[in-house]
């Protein structure tokens, strides 16, 4: 009985405020007597003052500084979690998930490829600042500042271990997505990464149904698989993981020395903890050398095959470009292969441009995609080949450590380390000692 009461209280306490959201529809407030002035619907939204962007940049820098201190100095998961929630509320829900460094990849790319495009200072800063911090302190941006990571982090209620092999395969997706995001930003006329941002709909409480479903599915998976988007899809994560390898002072599970007690072995929900290595059996080294040689030979073949495949897909890839899509539609309409028109073809016709010009543009874009597609395919081939090589090289590790590339600097593993517990106890003692004096 008490259990039922507890459950009921618990559920009510949590659900009532949430269910209130739906009641608005059932009992619409009467407007006709309140003197409410309906807004002019045609008025364009006012631009956000530029100073707000500088505030965002400053806040990002502050969050990262604070995160560095909390994760490396204080070593406090709770503080990191609190900071992450604050960042989620501000950068996610308050600022509608924009601007974010993940999308800024495309602004930076466009700047490099389009001389007429001037990157907003805030976008450039959002891209660069987390990179700089990563170079020194590892992926603290992922752990504390990224709203996309945070929203997944909060839903993680029962982490399941993703096998190492599956992670290796799935990670190819993120590299491919990064390559595609860069390609389409450079010549595709579309910001693919923003278009398919799975969580922005939640931040804005509105959006395209397909994207909302994608986001909801990722969050549903995220109940059991730690941060699936960050680990297997995030294009910025790809850059950060590789920069993080170079970082000097980053997350270490133990504050002092590893006593290989194995207590932290299963602590990481993101599979980032690496175990100490042991010697391979005799005879395995010869096989490993031959394997490595084989993959080294395979690497250029994979690059060439990927490049060829990407080149062959040029027309299909180019369809992501709105001008090409419009050209194809207009052509189909003009040649009687489809009936009716679309908004895009109607809009084109109001410009009064000759359709021949449109086809010419589309053909030029396709030829740019020939090179772009080849580079994208080659890049994916390089990554796949590189991964095969990396997985064939023996690494030596004497103690448990957080993989610099995979560790998202969340601080969950700290509490598992007896050395950390010791440190905390010493600190508590020191504090109480000071208090007693």
């Amino acid at each position, binding site marked *: 009985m008490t259990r039922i009461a507890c459950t009921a209280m618990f559920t009510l306490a949590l659900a009532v405020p949430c*269910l209130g959201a739906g009641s608005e529809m059932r009992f619409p407030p009467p407007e006709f007597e309140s003197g409410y002035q309906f807004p002019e619907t045609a008025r364009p939204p006012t631009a956000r003052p530029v100073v707000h962007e500088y505030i965002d940049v400053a806040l990002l820098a502050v969050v990262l500084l604070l995160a560095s201190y909390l994760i490396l100095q204080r070593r406090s998961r709770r503080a990191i979690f609190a900071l992450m929630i604050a960042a989620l509320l501000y950068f996610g829900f308050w600022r509608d998930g924009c601007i974010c460094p993940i999308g800024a990849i495309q602004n930076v790319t466009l700047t490099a490829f389009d001389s007429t495009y001037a990157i907003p200072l805030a976008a450039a800063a959002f891209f660069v600042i987390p990179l700089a911090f990563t170079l020194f302190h590892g992926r603290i941006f992922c752990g504390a500042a990224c709203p996309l990571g945070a929203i997944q982090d909060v839903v993680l209620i029962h982490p399941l271990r993703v096998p190492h092999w599956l992670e290796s395969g799935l990670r190819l997706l993120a590299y491919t997505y990064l390559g595609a995001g860069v390609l389409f930003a450079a010549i595709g006329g579309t910001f693919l990464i923003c278009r398919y941002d799975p969580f922005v709909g939640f931040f804005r409480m509105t959006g395209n149904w397909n994207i909302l479903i994608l986001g909801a599915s990722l969050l549903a998976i995220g109940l059991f698989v730690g941060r699936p988007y960050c680990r297997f899809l995030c294009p910025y994560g790809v850059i950060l993981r590789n920069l993080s390898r170079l970082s000097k002072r980053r997350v270490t599970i133990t504050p002092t020395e590893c006593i290989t007690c194995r207590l932290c072995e299963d602590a990481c929900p993101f599979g980032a903890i690496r175990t*100490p290595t042991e010697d391979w059996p005799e005879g395995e080294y010869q096989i490993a050398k031959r394997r490595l040689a084989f993959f080294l030979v395979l690497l250029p073949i994979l690059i060439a095959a990927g490049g060829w495949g*990407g080149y062959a*897909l040029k027309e299909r890839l180019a369809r992501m470009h709105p001008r090409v899509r419009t050209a194809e539609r207009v052509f189909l309409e003009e040649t009687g292969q489809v009936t009716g028109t679309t908004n895009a073809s109607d809009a084109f016709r109001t410009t009064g441009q000759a359709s021949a010009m449109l086809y010419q543009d589309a053909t030029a874009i396709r030829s740019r995609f020939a090179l772009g597609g080849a580079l994208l395919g080659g890049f994916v081939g390089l990554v796949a080949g590189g991964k095969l090589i990396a997985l064939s090289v023996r690494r030596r590790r004497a103690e448990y450590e957080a993989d610099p590339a995979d560790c998202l600097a969340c601080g969950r593993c700290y509490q598992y380390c007896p050395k950390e517990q010791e440190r905390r106890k010493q600190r508590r003692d020191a504090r109480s000692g000071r208090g007693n004096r």
Partner: protein
Amino acid sequence: MKAETANMNLWHQAARTTTLVGAVFSGIFTGLLVWNLVGSALIGPTRENDLAALKVQVQKEPGNQELLVQIRQLDLQIRRDRIWRWDFAREAASMLLGSAVVLVVAGTFAGGLAKKPPRPQPVAERGELQMREARQARWSVVGGIAVLAVGMGLLTLTRWVSFVQGGNGDGGTPYASLEARQAQWPRFRGLAGAGVSTHANTPTSWNGKTGAGILWKTPVAVPGHNSPVVWEDRIFFSGADPNLRQVLCFDGKSGQLLWTGDVPTGPLPAGEEFELMEDTGYAAPTVATDGRRVYAIFPTGDVAGFDFTGKRLWHKNLGRPDSSYGYASSLETYQNLVLIDYDQSDGKDGKSRFLALDGTSGKVAWEAKRALPSTWTTPIVADVAGKPQLITVADPNVVAYDPANGKELWRAECVGGDLAPSPIYAGGLVLAIQPYSQMVAIKPTGQGDVTKTHIAWKAEDGIPDICSPVSNGTYVYLLDSEGLLTCYQVADGKKVYEHELKDQFRASPSIAGDKLYLLSLKGVMHIAQVGPEYKELGRCELGEDCFASPAFVDGRIYIRGAKNLYCIGGTSVGSTPDTK
């Protein structure tokens, strides 16, 4: 201590049950959202298609009140359903969010309470394990490469559109090929305005009273003297009265009205009235199609392009033409261009011009200023030794242009007066008519003024006033409105015969195969043998007045009567050699 543990267990169980409740509700609301989405995806389009079909139906039966009520009800139902589903989705999404928050918070709480301290088990062969993991990871990468390769392969199977005209199997061009146009009846009097059909299987017997030989007959509500134009199984023409201008499209198989497209016009200047001669009417010019779109012009100066579904792509007002009998020149097309002879008044006020509009947008592609007065002839694009020539006739000139850019090629000063019969190109000669006066044959091979150098011959007997000539390349037939049929040799202009048909004519004569078709004002089709003597093959009565020239396409004749559209002939529209 024991009490504390029991208390912990109680909270843990409560949190777990709450998690379960949250999960069940999340599942229910997710299911409801999916049901709602699937419902709108399945039911929505079906209802909207039904509504579209009803709307088409009501155009055919404008007075059907029951149909109108049905449309309103269905429209209301669709709107209600959409709003209901929208509200439902918002509510279910809010509930889902609430349940998900319960699930996550309670789940995290339960997870925290259930956390057990790690108890690592001994691992036997860690080296072996790591090697196995690395091997599996390599295979996983290989699997990833395979998945990407398959994905790329599947992507290559998707369709893309080549902009090369007629290339890569998509087969498209922005306008139909000459071969395709030859098989159709794309403008007034068919291809190049010749009045000649390439199909020889044309019917020779029908009766309007008994219905024998008539495949279908459809009443046409909107008046107009212009002639039907045919593209595959679509019949187009226009109709107008002082207040309405419409393009109509009928189904060639059933005669059903497929759509009507309205052409707007601007208001008249204050105090002005828009009245035209009854003989000309408000829709004298015949529409034209390039096989992709259909174009129409009206005496108000409004010209418009429609796609084959009836969607108006563009509309343009060229300024109301000053034409004493009312504007009547029909449209011609060349590739994607719509060609308009816009001569008016006495030609001295700078308003006369020849225009080529881009068929896709209605924008002016080129324009040639002309100091020529009103004409009622229709220009033709003739294929002169593989090179297209746009031939126009307006007092006193026959002028040829390059239809691609409007550059004048040659001109001959040889006609005059109020010109109605349109020119034709036959046997290597351009044949132009000066009503009641003369037929002039011009060799279209010159440059500049060819008046003195390229006139091959002139003829003066049986010269028509309204009807255009028709020729099989050897003989040219002239038919005047009082029924005098005169035949000449094309090569030298020698008269071959003359025959009184004792009937009145407005429609121009046509040739299909080896037969001459002459449709009288009373709706009697006189069918005669093409040749050096008049040999009647038959007379078919329609029982209705006919002003428009008939269209001949593969075994069928489409005749627009004063009140009905008729399809004479077999049951199959037949093959279309080129649909590119």
